[in-house]
């Protein structure tokens, strides 16, 4: 009904605009408006309107920013990135914003002001001014210099961020799939066991090769837990389609690609609790999102990331049991041989590691009902 009223209203406005437009065209012809030309009064009207739009527009841009500033991450003067490299990205953002902001205001102001000032009217004659080499050199060189500064600083920061991870960085392996994440930590040997996508099955969602002894102490927790101020290297992968590992508060994004390992390292600087206090929101959590379109539930791959102080982190780590311990009983024959099909999924494993999407292997709607889907679906 509302839609109908809306459509009727729009049609009515159309009819009115059309009638007025037709009338004004006829009036113009009667008044002797030259075809292809615009009258002085028309130019005045639109000159003033353009000027008005420019001024209100520029005000709206800054007012709008000021109104939403509290909600922003970048562009928020109070924003504290949760990672070390986030600070460099943030300062790069501010530098770029100041430069672009100045260029934006000057060029928009001139554009609309000239449109107003040089509107055709009595006493205003156009001047043949075809070019001016000095002027053109000036406005080629200035942007070139400014951009060189931005490029240099940008690339320098980029190399810092993408440099090799420190040797003491902890490794966290994250594997994406439709529509979930699987996490694996190396155990006490700091090494991850081998994986092979052909070994993936309902029970072995990552295709871990249990013959590789390095896999026996690997942990597979249901959340990503990090230690504050300790560098962490995320080793990323995907099982089915492209995904992207996106931690907005840490300013990390990296695609997860089937068949091609990718990685990203960082140092978290604020624990979850610190960030909750800082943001004045005790409900706050760091969220992992998927940033590369991966199918129908792409928007629904939320995963919690926790950053703990060192003692808390160690306590958490001590609680974790190697995944292998939980499932080795089900491996038949024992680990030395090839992994086995048909073993029942153990309830001991976590739901996150054996996801419905993979078990089901279907894209039908029933998958979604098993997930923590929002009500609106």
């Amino acid at each position: 009904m509302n839609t109908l009223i809306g459509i009727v209203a729009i049609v009515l406005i159309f009819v009115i605009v059309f009638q007025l437009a037709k009338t004004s065209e006829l009036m113009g012809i009667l008044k002797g408006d030259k075809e292809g030309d615009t009258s002085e009064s028309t130019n005045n009207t639109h000159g003033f309107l353009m000027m008005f739009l420019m001024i209100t527009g520029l005000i709206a841009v800054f007012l709008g920013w000021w109104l939403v500033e509290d909600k922003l991450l970048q562009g928020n003067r109070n924003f504290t990135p949760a990672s070390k490299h986030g600070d460099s990205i943030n300062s790069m953002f501010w530098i770029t914003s100041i430069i672009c902001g100045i260029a934006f205001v000057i060029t928009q102001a001139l554009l609309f002001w000239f449109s107003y000032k040089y509107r055709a009217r009595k006493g205003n004659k156009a001047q043949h001014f075809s070019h001016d080499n000095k002027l053109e050199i000036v406005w080629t060189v200035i942007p070139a210099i400014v951009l060189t500064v931005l490029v240099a600083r940008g690339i320098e920061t980029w190399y810092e961020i993408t440099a090799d991870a420190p040797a003491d960085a902890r490794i966290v392996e994250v594997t994406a799939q439709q529509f979930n994440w699987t996490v694996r930590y190396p155990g006490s040997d700091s090494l991850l066991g081998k994986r092979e996508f052909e070994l993936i099955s309902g029970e072995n969602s990552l295709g871990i090769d249990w013959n590789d002894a390095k896999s026996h102490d690997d942990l597979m927790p249901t959340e990503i837990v990090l230690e504050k101020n300790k560098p962490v290297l995320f080793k990323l992968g995907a099982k089915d389609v492209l995904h992207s590992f996106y931690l907005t508060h840490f300013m990390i994004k990296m695609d997860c690609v089937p068949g091609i390992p990718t990685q990203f390292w960082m140092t978290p600087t604020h624990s979850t609790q610190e960030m909750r206090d800082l943001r004045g929101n005790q409900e706050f959590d760091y969220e992992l999102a998927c940033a590369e379109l991966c199918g129908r539930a792409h928007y629904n791959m939320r995963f919690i990331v926790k950053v703990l102080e060192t003692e808390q982190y160690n306590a958490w780590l001590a609680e974790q049991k190697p995944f292998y311990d939980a499932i080795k009983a089900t491996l038949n024959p024992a680990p030395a041989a090839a992994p086995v099909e048909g073993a029942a999924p153990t309830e001991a494993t976590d739901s996150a590691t054996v996801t419905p999407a993979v078990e089901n292997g279907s894209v039908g709607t029933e998958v979604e009902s098993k997930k923590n889907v929002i009500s609106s679906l």
Partner: protein
Amino acid sequence: MAELHNPAIEVGHDTHVHGHDHHHGHDDHGHHELNFIEKYIFSQDHKVIGKQFLFLGMAWAIVGGLFSIFFRLQLAWPDESFPILEWFLGSWAEGGKLSAEFYYALVTMHGTILVFFVLTAGLSGTFSNFLIPLQVGARDMASPFMNMLSFWMFVLSSCVMLFSLFIQTGPASGGWTAYPPLSALPQASLGSGLGMDLWLISIALFIVSVALGGLNYVTTVINMRTKGMDFFRMPLTVWAFFFTAIIGLLSFPVLFGAAILLEFDRLLGTSFFLSDIYVAGEALQHSGGSPILFQHLFWFLGHPEVYIIILPAMGIVSEVMSVHSRKPIFGYKAMVFSILGITILSFIVWAHHMFMSGLNPFVASIFVLFTLLIAVPSAIKVFNWITTLWRGSIRLNPAMLFAIGFVSLFISGGLTGIYLGNSTLDIQLHDTYYVVAHFHIVMGLAAFYGMFAGIYHWFPKMFGRYMNSSMGYVHFYVTLVGSYAIFWPMHYLGMSGVPRRYYDFSVFDQFNQYADLNKFITIAAIIVFAVNILFVFNFFYSIFNGRKVTVLNPYGATTLEWTTPIHPGHGNWVGEIPAVHRWPYDYSINGRDFIPQTEALGAGEVDDHDHGSDLPNAGSAIPGKH
């Protein structure tokens, strides 16, 4: 010349100097009369083909625009039910709610339709066809028959895409970029079934259309300029169409290759783009392929594509601005060379779409350099447009307003490109709404504004009537305010980290803060869509009922299209094609308002566009040099 052998072209046939009825009052030499089908359907007249591209482009623009309204409704009111959606989309929107699967299909189709069918075919196809022969002084394209085929390949491509909207598994839904493995695996998504096959076929046909058209544009510009029409006497429109066609010819075939290889992966089990995949409960055989290879191939077209879209708009805007400011375009040669610079650079920036794809960081840094470099020619163009207005005598008609609006949007969207082209900032902003805001403003809206400027400006030449300018003004102001209202706030969403291509934001606390803003954006989108329907109405109404053109050159423009009859027939000029004696921007010179290109140079006069500044008392003038 080729057209002399073509019976469809009879010079002077059907040309009218006074704009009276088409079918009477002509001396008949007994030659072949064109029937309706030859004249309006399978026409080989570049002007008719240009209009055909425009009509089909407009139809697609309405479809693509409507799709965006549909998915904006979902984003603004995720819990609401809209019976109108079910009416339009049937089981894809059961109970008036869009399914997630179809949401992505709509997003994909919106992108594909707008980028390829509207802003490539509808913009470059329309104006390259219509204006190149008229402005360089040719009777038609180099190969009118191929030109006709180009349009009909576009029709065929359109039919395939349209058909894909009605199949059971729905159209392609993996984004307009169609990244594999998602697009290659029917198990991974409904839209990767038959819909994806049809998408690839449609795109392949479309590329054939672009190639046929592009070959014609390039050949015509190189070979068929009239006497005296040196390269540096061509209007900037022609320069822009020329470079656009070259970019298209060099880059579209790469996408053709990518599409064929992807289809091989889908149908024949090859592994160009696939490796190590476990999906739907089984490990696939594919081995050794690289999904990133597809991204390279896709963006090798995909990035030049944005210049294919924006360059014609730049050319149109340069011409419209110059005519209605009564001034030469400032820095004509700089404009030409900046188009050339953009053309070259457009081929070496593609990987800036892939900073976060796992690309080697060193390779990424090279692409940062080239990407930000492209801001230099872009900045030159902006400054030159602004200076063109300076000390002009500006007619603020709808065409001119849209041209000014174009520059405003190009500035806004261009500056955000400086953020995104910087890989450091792209880490955070990549695939967020910041990107959506950026490319919609700089390429979507700006190109649309260029198209509107061109339509309002050349409508009298196309149809012998004027569009209603009051409706044009309403169209302009609502569109300008509305389109900024839609896309400006999206920057703020992006700066808050909100990712694009999300069906529902409520899953994440961080992304779920903008319910009101999303409603605001959707309402603005509906209003802008409505006012553009008004534009379409104005367009068709004016074809039949607009104010009639009674003079040959209503704007006082210098270029050749205004020397043709009001209703030019196939062949454009009655009698000989006029020769050209000067550059196209002699406005407000020698005490005259304008001097047409066809007027011979006076005694002692030089065609002086490449000489020093002629601004009185300009200290920076370097007379006699350039």
